[in-house]
């Protein structure tokens, strides 16, 4: 039979997929609305408030971008590990370690005679190194110790949190007693420069966009990216095709760790200017959600991460205006991911039914 598979319904698939994703968005909104109604809050007003909170003025837009930059970094970071078929849950801890290493170098050098820009640069490089070290631990546990990267990463996340608290209340505590508000802030000379009157640093934006472009190119256009994908989709076959598999998995961990560490470094140098207990702000986990939502396509990471950042910033006003908890943003984000995954599953089922399933894969193939 001279039938080249897939061709019959390819055209249809192309425009059906976005429709399904739209349906997922609507379902997530519907369920959030139901939940708001259940707790007796006016849904429309809540949504309007989120929109207003995110877009009402230059300040709020700038704040949104402050969230966007590290979120984009963690998102594109986990895109690399996802490509290699790895669930780098430990990205959260990698952000934290990035922040810790950055703080460490800033503390070491703040009294030195080095020019501030050099200190900041060194601190940020140290942050990237810190993230990479933490990722390398998860990677080594996976490749040499046979510990699933989800468990390894989860454990390392707890260690990272504990380490932060110990530093804040121990060796790096403020003069007098340690406080949940973190270590003593660094002098303004060691802050990453921000736009006048805003909390937003153009450096953060530039670095995040640069990382996005680099990862996009890496996964799309390079041999390394293609090999990562092969390892992620079928490790056995990749090995037989001549790809050193564990080296590639390790490399993907390291690259993701570098980017997560950079996100942590930005949290210290551009946002908080000190180490605080929840320095990672959950951007690691949120990055995982965004990566799942964009179906592991780097090109969609920017807009979807921006949407998530808008939800985060927009919901800050909710407790004051509507006496709703700001975790509403998290509810909506979580529901969105669940519905996108659900709808994707449904889509595949439907597509399978449209396609000739039976003899395109001969029965004799089963072994």
């Amino acid at each position, binding site marked *: 039979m001279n039938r080249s*598979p897939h061709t019959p319904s390819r055209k249809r698939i192309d425009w059906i997929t976005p429709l399904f994703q739209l349906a997922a968005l609507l379902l997530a909104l519907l369920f959030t609305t139901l939940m708001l109604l259940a707790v007796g809050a006016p849904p429309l007003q809540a949504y309007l408030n989120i929109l207003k909170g995110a877009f009402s003025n230059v300040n709020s837009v700038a704040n949104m971008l402050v969230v966007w930059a590290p979120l984009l970094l963690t998102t594109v970071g986990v895109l690399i590990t996802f490509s290699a078929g790895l669930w780098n849950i430990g990205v959260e801890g990698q952000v934290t370690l990035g922040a810790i290493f950055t703080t460490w170098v800033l503390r070491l050098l703040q009294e030195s005679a080095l020019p501030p820009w050099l200190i900041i640069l060194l601190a940020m490089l140290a942050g990237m190194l810190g993230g990479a070290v933490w990722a390398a631990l998860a990677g080594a546990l996976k490749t040499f110790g046979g510990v699933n990267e989800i468990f390894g990463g989860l454990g390392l996340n707890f260690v990272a949190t504990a380490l932060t608290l110990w530093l804040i209340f121990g060796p790096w505590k403020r003069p007098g007693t340690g406080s949940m508000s973190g270590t003593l802030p660094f002098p303004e000379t060691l802050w990453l420069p921000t736009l006048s009157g805003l909390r937003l640093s153009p450096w953060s934006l530039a670095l995040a966009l640069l990382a996005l472009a680099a990862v996009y190119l890496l996964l799309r256009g390079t041999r390394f990216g293609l090999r990562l994908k092969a390892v992620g*989709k*079928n490790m056995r*076959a990749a090995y037989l095709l001549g790809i050193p598999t564990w080296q590639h998995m390790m490399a993907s961990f390291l690259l993701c760790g570098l980017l997560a560490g950079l996100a942590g470094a930005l949290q210290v140098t551009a946002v908080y200017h000190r180490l605080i207990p929840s320095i990672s702000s959950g951007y690691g986990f949120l990055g995982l959600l965004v990566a799942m939502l964009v179906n592991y396509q780097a090109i969609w990471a920017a807009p979807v991460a921006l949407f998530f950042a808008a939800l985060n910033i927009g919901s800050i006003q909710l407790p004051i205006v509507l006496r709703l908890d700001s975790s509403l943003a998290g509810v909506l984000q979580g529901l969105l991911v669940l519905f996108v995954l659900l709808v994707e599953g449904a889509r595949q089922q439907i597509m399978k039914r449209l*396609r000739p399933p039976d003899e*395109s894969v001969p029965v004799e193939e089963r072994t």
Partner: protein
Amino acid sequence: MDVTLHDIHKTFGRVHANVGITLHVPAGTIQGILGENGAGKSTLMKILSGFIRADRGEIRLDGRPVVIHSPSDAIRHGVGMLHQDPLDFPPMRVLDNFILGRHGGLSLGRAAARRDFRQLAEQFGFALDPEAYVDALTVGERQQLEILRLLWLGARVLIFDEPTTGISAAQKEKLFAALRLLAEQGRTVLFVSHKLEDVEGLCHKIAVLRQGQLVGEVRPPYKTALLVEMMFGKNIVTGERAPAEPREVTLHLDSLSAEDNRLAVRNVSLSVRGGEVIGLAGMEGSGQGLFMRAICGLTRPTGGRIRVGGRDLTGRSYLSFKRHGVAFLPAARLEEGLVPGLNLTEHFVLAEEQRGFFVNWEAGRALARQRIGDFNIRGAPETTVESLSGGNQQRALLALLRLPLTLLLLEHPTRGLDIESTIYIWSKLRERCAQGTSILFISSDLEEILQYSDRVLVFFSGRVTPPLEAAALTSDRLGELIGGKGWPEKGRER
């Protein structure tokens, strides 16, 4: 039971898998269903056994129209199907598998079931221990278990899907005897196969399908040429064997040993010359797979030396072997050989020697187009490998191999492929041999072993024969060795 399929139609998307098939099979008949992959024979059998519903058409059992909704519905009507891979539960005992699927009360009635099992097994001469675990059985024995189970459930029509794949010659004889007995008892047997020899030797009549249509029915005496023509619409001539020219030794094994948790292969010594083809025969799991994986660094040998092209590679990894011109093509094409989700272009780019950091996709597509043409793959550069048919996946795997190769190791290179693909694959392998590549291949198909090998190693539960000249080997002798007969008595050498 008398089976009539009347005007059966089935489409999957745009593919018309069954086009108005009408077939009458009287009780007591062994009916062959012959056709190449994708001819529609599996679809037709799945319709009869309730796995899928026909779009149109009627099934009549003993003249009475029936509607079959599911496999368990089919068995209530007396229709049972044996799948190519037995659908059983390996971690459970034979008797538990036997009882499964039986409708009834809470109590299993093990004692009664055991009695029935023994009785049925005796009737067919099957030596099955009801207390054995299924994962310790061979494919042939699992088939026997499945036959007994279906009979016990009251099957009067039995469908066999490629039952002679992966079983020994002795088991095949036993299976055929059982099928003949079933027919004598007035049961109806539908025998699906693409092996001409099997259907010719067994069936009372043969229906040939091609591209979803019934081409015609043939009764004995069968003419092979006619059957082949009906299957493919043209004649296919098998290539002649040319003796290999003596060349340099490419692979030298010096008392190589390897073991896994099931068995051990000990002290195999072998020298293979360039262009030579060595067939590894034996029942599946007799040690040939382990042996092959040890030769290329996928399993670490427990003793002995491996030299490839004069270089000692003992203990090195597969990647190192690969750099020295060794390639291994696994039997599980989609599980181990190809990367589902990636398309042909991406595969060719991956398999090429590393050049530069960025991929030149234009060159990659050009390469893919060229290889697709060279190897006659039915697919486009953008086609993902999982949507290729089995034969085309195998062609793609061969097309991915780099040039030149010193040693090519193949696990079941033509399993599940139709004759046309098989001949094509071997013509490509022969080209490799002509360039000086040595080939070692595993096959459970005796004909393939005898036809394509220069020398043969036979494996039987870890034991290995010395290299046997294929030209001096008969299929009877080979079958005996595979079945564990005619081995020289060796004391307790282990």
